[in-house]
């Protein structure tokens, strides 16, 4: 009897959907095999819409687990699901809307090798509900390779966007280069902070120097080679072992670089992470080093060492209760003494945690050193960064900031809300239905704006752009020109920051003529990694051929030698702006990056938002911390590059 009623209702459901979309379209919906990448804010809404619209073959891939702060919008999840995989719970919840739906889930990274071109090829349609550019780039390439239509989407606060990507017919996701995130010069971070963000970035770097993946990209010590300070008393800071020029370090051999970088960690280990001594070093002695570089302070207000501040300070604490009706507990700004106390206690507890992780790693026979990963949702790590940043703000006479705001800034949170996600997920399904009808000509890119434009529109459909013939991804023979200093950039750096970091490859092989310079097979070409490009024969105007087998992506790169770059950049990809090293990236709102002609269209029609991203958007400043990674992780640099999308990219979902 249950079977009878169930099948009857299946028929009833069919009748209702058919009546709106037509029998033929409904037949295609039922037959369609759909991949949904991401089961977060947009994904929960999208899966619901798909099932209710009659889709019955859906595969869901997501690598995240559920957190409390997801529950205000990811409605397929409830409190009892916190900690469980999103893909699994989303599939289980949505199945209840239609028990006949065949929803398969993978709790995995979409970049994994198991999700090959052939695997993508089984789908009629791929729907992205992603939260980071890196994974979007990857799915874009896989869909181009497998020639599967892709619906791309994103939200940021009240703004949203949906578009359709079809090989050969429309722009691909990478036809328009994304502008690199806003940067803060290394010297500003290390020597002359003037904004809260400079101190927040410094605080996160400090965390990595002390507990995390310490490298020269996040050096926080005074930089005595600051060009601005040139001509200062040569003795000024040279006594300080940490005070070397970042660029000089990059150009020197690895050993020297590491030597320098490890010095703060080495110093901390030597001093057993002693809280008072660390405060003294960072906020008194290092400040005095900076003060000796007196050219820096001719036009600037000089910093004041913390001991002096504490003597002058009468505030002690401005504590007036933990929370009140007018603000959250975290919205209270700590006093100077309170910051010092929180810094000391969080430092000690993090040091304790680090040693526990190291003991665990040693016990398990791991050869890799245990480190801590910064995570904005790790209260202790967030306490540490808030306190460290505020102490530095005090030293540099920058107004202090509460923990709530520090978290927005440090975690680069662009909040996501249920309503925007719901609207965007609805638009995705409408585009999906057009694709299933083979009506690409009426597919649209749609923007959700906050306010109506002069033509009264708040949802603005615009025609899809044609592919960019010079796209470094979807062109017939993709080519790109990269400017680097071939004498200083090593092959390993080229692999990491250019091929993987900038050009979005996962496992590139690189050839010059018949010579294999870089192999994706582990170990095969490791010997080349520390060598400068020029010593491997890559000099001015050398063309190299790069292939990512997994992405079925081939790219010819013309390398041009350039001695120097602006603003701490290590290289420039032509047509893509300058790209500073991953250090010192500033938080930024989701980058509006419409192609020139799309931008014109959008502006004709409105001041619509351009590209926005799903869910809370987090611009990572160093790629070492992911939201959903355990606070402690055993990683080395190579692993880091292969770990999840969230890990290495600038944009991460909260």
């Amino acid at each position, binding site marked *: *009897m249950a079977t009878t009623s*169930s099948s009857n*209702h299946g028929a009833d*459901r069919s*009748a*209702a*959907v058919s*009546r*709106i979309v037509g029998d033929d379209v409904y037949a295609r919906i039922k037959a369609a095999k759909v991949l949904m990448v991401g089961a977060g804010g947009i994904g929960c*809404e999208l899966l*619901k819409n798909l099932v*209710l619209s009659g889709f019955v073959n859906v595969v869901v891939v997501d690598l995240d687990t559920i957190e*409390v702060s997801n*529950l*205000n919008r990811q*409605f397929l999840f409830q409190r009892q699901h916190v900690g469980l995989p999103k893909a699994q719970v989303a599939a289980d919840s949505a199945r209840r*809307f*239609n*028990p006949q739906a065949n929803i398969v889930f993978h709790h995995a990274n979409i970049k994994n090798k198991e999700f090959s071109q052939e695997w993508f090829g089984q789908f009629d349609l791929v729907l992205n509900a992603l939260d980071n550019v890196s994974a979007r780039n990857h799915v874009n390439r896989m869909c181009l390779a497998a020639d599967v239509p892709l619906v791309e989407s994103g939200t940021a606060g009240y703004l949203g966007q949906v578009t359709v990507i079809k090989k050969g017919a429309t722009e691909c996701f990478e036809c328009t280069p994304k502008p690199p995130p806003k940067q803060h010069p290394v010297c500003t971070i290390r020597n002359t902070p003037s*904004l*809260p*963000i400079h101190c927040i970035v410094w605080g996160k770097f400090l965390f990595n120097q002390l507990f995390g993946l310490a490298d020269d990209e996040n050096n926080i010590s005074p930089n005595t080679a600051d060009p601005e300070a040139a001509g200062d008393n040569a003795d000024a800071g040279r006594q300080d072992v940490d005070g070397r020029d970042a660029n000089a370090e990059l150009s020197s051999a690895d050993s020297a670089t590491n030597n320098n970088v490890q010095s703060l960690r080495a110093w901390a280990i030597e001093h057993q992470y002693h809280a008072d001594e660390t405060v003294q070093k960072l906020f008194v002695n290092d400040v005095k080093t900076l003060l000796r570089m007196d050219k820096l302070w001719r036009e600037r207000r000089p910093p004041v060492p913390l001991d002096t501040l504490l003597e002058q300070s009468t505030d002690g604490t401005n504590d007036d209760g933990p*929370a*009140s*009706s007018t603000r*959250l*507990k*975290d919205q209270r*700004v700590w006093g100077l003494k309170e910051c010092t106390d929180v810094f000391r206690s969080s430092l000690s507890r993090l040091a304790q945690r680090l040693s526990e992780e190291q003991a665990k790693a040693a016990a398990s026979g791991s050869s890799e050193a245990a480190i801590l990963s910064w995570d904005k949702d790790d209260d202790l790590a967030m306490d540490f960064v808030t306190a460290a940043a505020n102490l530095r703000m005090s030293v540099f006479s920058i*107004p*202090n900031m*509460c923990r*709530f*705001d520090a978290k*927005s*800034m440090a975690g*680069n*949170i662009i*909040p*996501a*809300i*249920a*309503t*925007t996600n*719901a*609207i965007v*997920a*609805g*638009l995705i*399904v*409408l585009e999906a239905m057009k694709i299933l009808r083979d009506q690409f000509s009426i597919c*649209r890119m749609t923007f959700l704006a906050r306010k109506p434009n002069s033509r*009264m*529109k708040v*949802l*603005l*459909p615009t025609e899809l752009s044609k592919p960019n013939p010079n796209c470094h991804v979807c062109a017939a023979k993709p080519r790109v020109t990269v400017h680097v200093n071939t004498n200083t950039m090593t092959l390993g750096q080229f692999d990491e920051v250019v091929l993987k970091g900038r050009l979005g490859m996962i496992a590139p092989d690189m050839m010059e003529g018949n010579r294999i310079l870089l192999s994706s097979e582990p170990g095969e070409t490791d010997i080349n990694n520390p060598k400068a490009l020029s010593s491997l024969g890559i000099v001015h105007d050398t063309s190299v051929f790069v292939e990512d087998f997994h992405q079925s992506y081939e790219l010819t790169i013309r390398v041009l030698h350039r001695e120097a770059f602006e603003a701490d950049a290590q290289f420039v990809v032509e047509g893509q702006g300058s790209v500073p090293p991953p250090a010192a990236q500033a938080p930024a*709102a989701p980058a509006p990056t419409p192609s020139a002609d799309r931008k014109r269209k959008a502006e004709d029609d409105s001041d619509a938002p351009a590209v926005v991203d799903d869910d*809370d958007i987090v611009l990572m400043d160093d790629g070492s911390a992911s939201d959903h990674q355990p606070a402690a992780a055993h990683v080395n640099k190579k692993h880091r590059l292969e770990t999840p999308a969230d890990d290495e990219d600038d944009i991460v979902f*909260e």
Partner: protein
Amino acid sequence: MAVAFTDDEAQLYDRQIRLWGLDAQKRMRSARVLLAGLTGLGVEVAKNIVLAGIKSITLLDGAVTTDADLTAQFYLGVESLGLNVSHSPKTRRQKRLLVHNAFMVAVVVDEENLESKQDSFFSQFDIVCLVGAPLNTMISVNDACRKYCVKFIAGSVYGLSGFLFQDLLEHDYVEDVVRAPGEPPQVGKHETAQQALDAANETTASQFHSSFTPLSAALSVAWSDAIAAKRIKPAPKLWFALLALWQTQRQNIELQATSDLLASAGIPSSVLPLDYLSAFFQSIGPEMSPVSAIVGGVYAQEVLKAVSGKDAPLNNVFLFDGTDGAGYATRVSL
């Protein structure tokens, strides 16, 4: 009563507090909402505003679940219809909603029909939300709400299209505007993430006011004269299609796109092609889930703006036109 946020609430609502600020969240937390009409659109609206953390929601719907509900209502499993088949008591739509209330929102279920309610019933709410109501019900409830100074919003989905109308009376709201150069920054007073994130482009909260009109007034616009006299910009086609639909409800006639219908509804033929109206009439039927999601998202965001007094409301009509995929916000009033 001002009650401090618990750590739990702060954590749960963390992201949206960063978007619209704590003050807005607190006002939402004291909002009492009536939602009448648990269609696919109604369920979308209920989901979105319950997620945002209001004080209470009263779900009013006397209807029994139907097959069509299955295509647009995610809280209704097949088993709810199975109960009917096995002669169990008929399942009321709102029963299924209770399951998903994981929040501290009070949910009240009312199985009476909207039409049976006295005017004074609406006075207990801060905002009354109608979904799928016929024209005369929308007008009378709007008028009742006016009597008790209760904000009003109504909407429906028709096939691939949908609309909402709102009457927020005399509405005061706060909006973050970019701080004028030279104005001192509000140190440590960042209410939202946007404010905190961009120190160079800091915003300040400013007070605004918006005056609304009741639906009856919006419907009394004499379009032919007004357009001819250039006193009003023509609304999008869909608004006129709705006027034609409501005219058929008034006259209790069949849905037929004729020039007589336009004439009787006072719609200039220049603003509503008959083939467009004909297609609109044909599409009226079961709700499409994605359309409910789109209109329900806008609808719920308007409810949240109304009860939080944060951000400019769409005064007073939103239209989603499924034929071109555009969403319009316009003011229908003289």
